[in-house]
């Protein structure tokens, strides 16, 4: 059954016609006053409403607010990605470290803790440091105890010997205490 062009009016107004049907309806408008008036009214309504909504002011701060919100999301996303990459790298390092051979070197001190052997590898030996003082210098060098066998701590006192160093009770403090480590 063939549709009367007038029946296409609503579809035309609703933007629902296929191109061929649309052409057919537009041709029909020139000969149908009723449809033409309806279309003219609709166009007038569209124009009115289109101009009317343009009058509605969009809040000035809306776009900057949305932009700021999006930037925050992007930054957060980058942080999350960086943190994930860091965590992945840390996990890789840990896995590699756990799989390293644990044989101690012959001269290295080793400490046994529970069932897991813990290997303490001594750092390479540093060259000995030689401290010389000019002839006649009034100094006293006292060696202090160190928790590490690889570190030697000495205190160098110039002038009078401190009471503690001499093991005496009278007050005598060094003028410039210095610290030297090897």
């Amino acid at each position, binding site marked *: 059954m063939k549709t009367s062009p007038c029946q296409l009016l609503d579809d035309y107004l609703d*933007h629902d016609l296929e191109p061929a049907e649309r052409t057919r309806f537009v041709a029909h408008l020139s000969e149908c006053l009723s449809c033409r008036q309806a279309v003219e009214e609709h166009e007038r309504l569209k124009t009115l409403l289109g101009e009317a909504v343009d*009058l509605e002011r969009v809040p000035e701060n809306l776009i900057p607010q949305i932009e700021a919100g999006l930037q925050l999301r992007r930054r957060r996303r980058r942080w999350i990605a960086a943190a994930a990459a860091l965590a992945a790298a840390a996990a890789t390092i840990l896995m590699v470290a756990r799989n390293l051979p644990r044989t101690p070197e012959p001269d290295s001190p080793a400490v046994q803790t529970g069932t897991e052997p813990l290997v303490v590898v001594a750092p390479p030996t540093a060259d000995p440091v030689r401290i010389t003082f000019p002839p006649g210098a009034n100094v006293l060098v006292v060696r202090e105890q160190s928790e590490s066998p690889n570190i030697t701590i000495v205190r160098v006192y110039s002038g009078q010997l401190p009471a503690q160093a001499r093991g005496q009770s009278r007050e005598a403090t060094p003028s410039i205490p210095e610290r030297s480590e090897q």
Partner: protein
Amino acid sequence: VSDILEEWVPRVYRFALRLSNDPHTAEDLAQETFLRAWRQRDRLRDERAARVWLFRITANLWRDQLRRSRSPVARAGSLGDSAGAEVADASVFTALRQVSEKEELTRALDAMNALPPRQRQVLYLSACEGMASTEIAAVLDMTANAVKANLSLARKSMRQLLPDFFPGAKPVK
């Protein structure tokens, strides 16, 4: 991004106004629309569908808000069809006729805003966004036939609300 926002924020905001009929709610809806669109941007396969996609997010956000809230504002802007509101309330007709000194455009806007929610929304999307019924149906999650029925009612209401703009319209009884 700035260019996209300049183009789309006003459109989304105005559509949000048609949904909620409240500027503050529309502002919140527009903001949340873009944040959600950013999160879900991978889902947009075809840029030509961006408009429907964006407006659909806005409409879904509004629907969620309606579910959560029972505020007077939310009820006034309900998305659903209201049974007794096939055409705008007669008091609105009278009020609109009385404000003859108002400018044409403001009157047209007031008339559209006075329509029942569904009619207001479909009329806006059709007249101001030039959307086809199928697109409007996708945005508002309704059938194309329901869109067409609401459009027809909306036009009828507008003719009655603005009789001097439409000389051929029948007078309101």
